[in-house]
């Protein structure tokens, strides 16, 4: 599942579970430590009490004689709490054994049970956990009479009878274990409940928190080709979503511009094709209806219109091929001045007719390495435009663009222009765009500059237009 809600839920739930596990463990072990410490303190005190009992001569040395009778019980007169040693169901125990393992003395609470101490103790001063034969769990402190831990008078007495006595003071920890089990169960139940509550809370919180995202998605789903002018409202959005909203609005703007251009292209294409199609159909229909009335030149008109349509189709096919990078390119070394003069020739009569001055500023012997046919196509379109759109008596200028070492890197063509602004210059290379919205010209259909730019890109050149005062200048240069 790839939903953000599910991912966040998994992460948050995992985090909560880890935190709860850590917290639960800390609580459990702290509580356990506290309980065990209390027991250990109690055992330490019990041990001291037993010392005192010995020191107060409440027990004679003779009682420790192996197999001797009677075996006296220790008497704890001072504090009521130590009487638990003497209850049959008491939870405090003591036991004295000789080195042979025979129990010399044990508390009433221990009954006939025997506490088996481990043979080796890592640290004799530390209490250990033991288990009686009947499964009763104990916490015990084990001492030895000659270990040096006993007070001097007591140690002397012991020595006189036995070389070493094992003395164990212990407490039943079953109740503590039960308490800890309850605590652990409580922690588990609380953890499960907390996890459930977290799932519910996080789900609701995420639903609430992500609602602006859903709303944004719903708004985006409403967008279609007819609503590209709509924009996403970022006023009520959370700050995290605003950058996304801004990017979406930029995307919408770009889409709207692209759609506008496509619509304009489709509309222009339809118009550019409708008129010549109508001409051909009407000329032919009139010739069929009234053959005797049709002038002799009717077929030439149909042919001229057909050629115009063929030109449009070929230009569009060329643009389509060049977009796919399928234009055939054959690079050769061409003389710039020679090609410019050759391309100008067909327009010389029209330039004279419009009383235009054509100025060429290209050094002879300058060579370019490019595809001759595509370069000619570019020049033909640029020169044709310059001659056609210059007002009468204007100056058309063709200049070589050179580096400091006089190496030609391109060509610039400029001519006077009437009423053209920068916004219109941006549209110059759009397919079928014409300054003349009436589209009455039959020699230009608005594809020339698109084709010229496509040709330039095909030979790794860049074609740009810029308005300089009352003139428009087209710069054609190699990109690198």
């Amino acid at each position: 599942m790839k939903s953000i809600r599910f991912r966040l839920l998994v992460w948050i739930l995992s985090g909560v579970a880890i935190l709860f596990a850590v917290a639960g463990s800390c609580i459990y072990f702290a509580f356990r430590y506290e309980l065990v410490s209390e027991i250990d303190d109690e055992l330490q005190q019990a041990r001291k009490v037993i010392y005192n009992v010995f020191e107060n001569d409440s027990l004679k040395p003779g009682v420790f004689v192996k197999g001797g009778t009677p075996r006296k019980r220790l008497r704890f007169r001072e504090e009521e709490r130590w009487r638990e040693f003497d209850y049959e169901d008491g939870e405090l125990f003591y036991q004295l054994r000789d080195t042979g393992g025979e129990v010399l003395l044990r508390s009433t609470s221990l009954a006939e049970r025997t506490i088996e101490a481990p043979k080796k103790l890592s640290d004799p001063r530390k209490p250990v956990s033991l288990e009686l034969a009947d499964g009763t769990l104990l916490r015990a402190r084990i001492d030895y009479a000659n270990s040096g831990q006993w007070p001097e008078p007591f140690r002397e007495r012991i020595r006189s009878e036995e070389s070493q006595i094992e003395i164990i003071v212990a407490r039943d920890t079953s109740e503590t274990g039960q308490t800890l089990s309850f605590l652990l169960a409580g922690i588990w139940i609380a953890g499960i409940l907390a996890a459930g509550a977290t799932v519910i809370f996080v789900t609701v919180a995420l639903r609430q928190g992500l609602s602006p995202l859903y709303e944004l998605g719903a708004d985006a789903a409403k967008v279609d080709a007819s609503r590209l002018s709509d924009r996403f409202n970022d006023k009520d959005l959370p700050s995290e979503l605003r950058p996304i909203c801004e990017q979406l609005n930029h995307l919408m703007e770009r889409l709207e511009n692209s759609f506008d251009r496509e619509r304009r292209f489709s509309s222009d294409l339809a118009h550019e094709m409708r008129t010549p199609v109508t001409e051909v159909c009407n000329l032919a229909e009139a010739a069929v209806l009234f053959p005797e009335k049709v002038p002799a030149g009717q077929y030439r008109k149909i042919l001229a219109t057909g050629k115009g349509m063929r030109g449009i189709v070929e230009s569009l096919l060329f643009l389509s091929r060049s977009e796919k990078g399928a234009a055939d390119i054959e690079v050769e070394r061409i003389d710039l001045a020679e090609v410019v003069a050759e391309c100008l020739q067909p327009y010389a009569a029209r330039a004279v007719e419009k009383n235009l001055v054509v100025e060429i500023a290209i050094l002879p012997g300058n060579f370019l390495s490019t595809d001759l046919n595509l370069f000619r196509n570019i020049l033909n379109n640029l020169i044709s435009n310059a001659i056609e759109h210059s007002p009468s008596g204007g100056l058309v200028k063709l200049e070589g663009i050179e580096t400091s070492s006089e190496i030609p890197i391109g060509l610039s063509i400029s001519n006077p222009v009437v009423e053209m602004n920068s916004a219109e210059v941006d549209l110059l290379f759009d397919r079928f765009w014409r300054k003349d919205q009436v589209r009455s010209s039959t020699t230009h259909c608005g594809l020339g500059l698109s084709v010229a730019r496509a040709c330039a890109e095909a030979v790794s050149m860049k074609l740009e237009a810029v308005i300089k005062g009352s003139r428009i200048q087209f710069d054609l240069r190699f990109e690198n």
Partner: protein
Amino acid sequence: MRVLIVEDSQYIRESVALVLRESGYAVDESEEGRDGLWKAESNSYDVIILDIMLPGLDGLSALKKLREGGHQTQILILSARDTIDDRIRGLREGADDYLVKPFDLGELLARVEALCRRGYMKKNPLHEVGGLTINRHAKTVSLNGQAIEMTAREYAILEFLVLRQGEVVSRTEIEAHVYDEHVSPVSNVVDKSICVLRKRLSESNKSAPIIQTRRGQGYIIETESA
């Protein structure tokens, strides 16, 4: 019927004009918006065929000016603009019909005929006056069931008089609606044509002449009750 074509495409204009002329219409042509508007304001046309994208003055502006000037001429827009919005705009500006390029010349002719009928509030292409029957669709004339041959110009004059049945129609009006701009206003082509028309009709009808002259006023085809 007199028609003005305002269309910048020479080939379309010529083709439409040829077909209309051969169908008996008097046709004037214009290739530019301002010139078209001037002709429309200066002459009395039954139908104006108007392109939208015209040099000088666009068709919609010319249409608006004509309607603002009180001209009631039937106007058919002929355009490559084919969207619903374009059609709605054209019709709302005051056009009576809208035809998208490319179009069939036969359809254009039928629409021009329909507009002419609408202009004279006649929906039926068959008109009968006494024993005279003219079929405006087939461009035929018969008198008492007998077909009468006549030229397109003669038919146009008769059709115009029949459409204005009961009204006195002056020579100037006939010139304006039946002849194009190339006919000299001082010529007596109308009188000559009426004379020839009467002759053709009288050959098949021995009763009172169908077309009567009102001296100093013009010509009239009386209604049957009169």
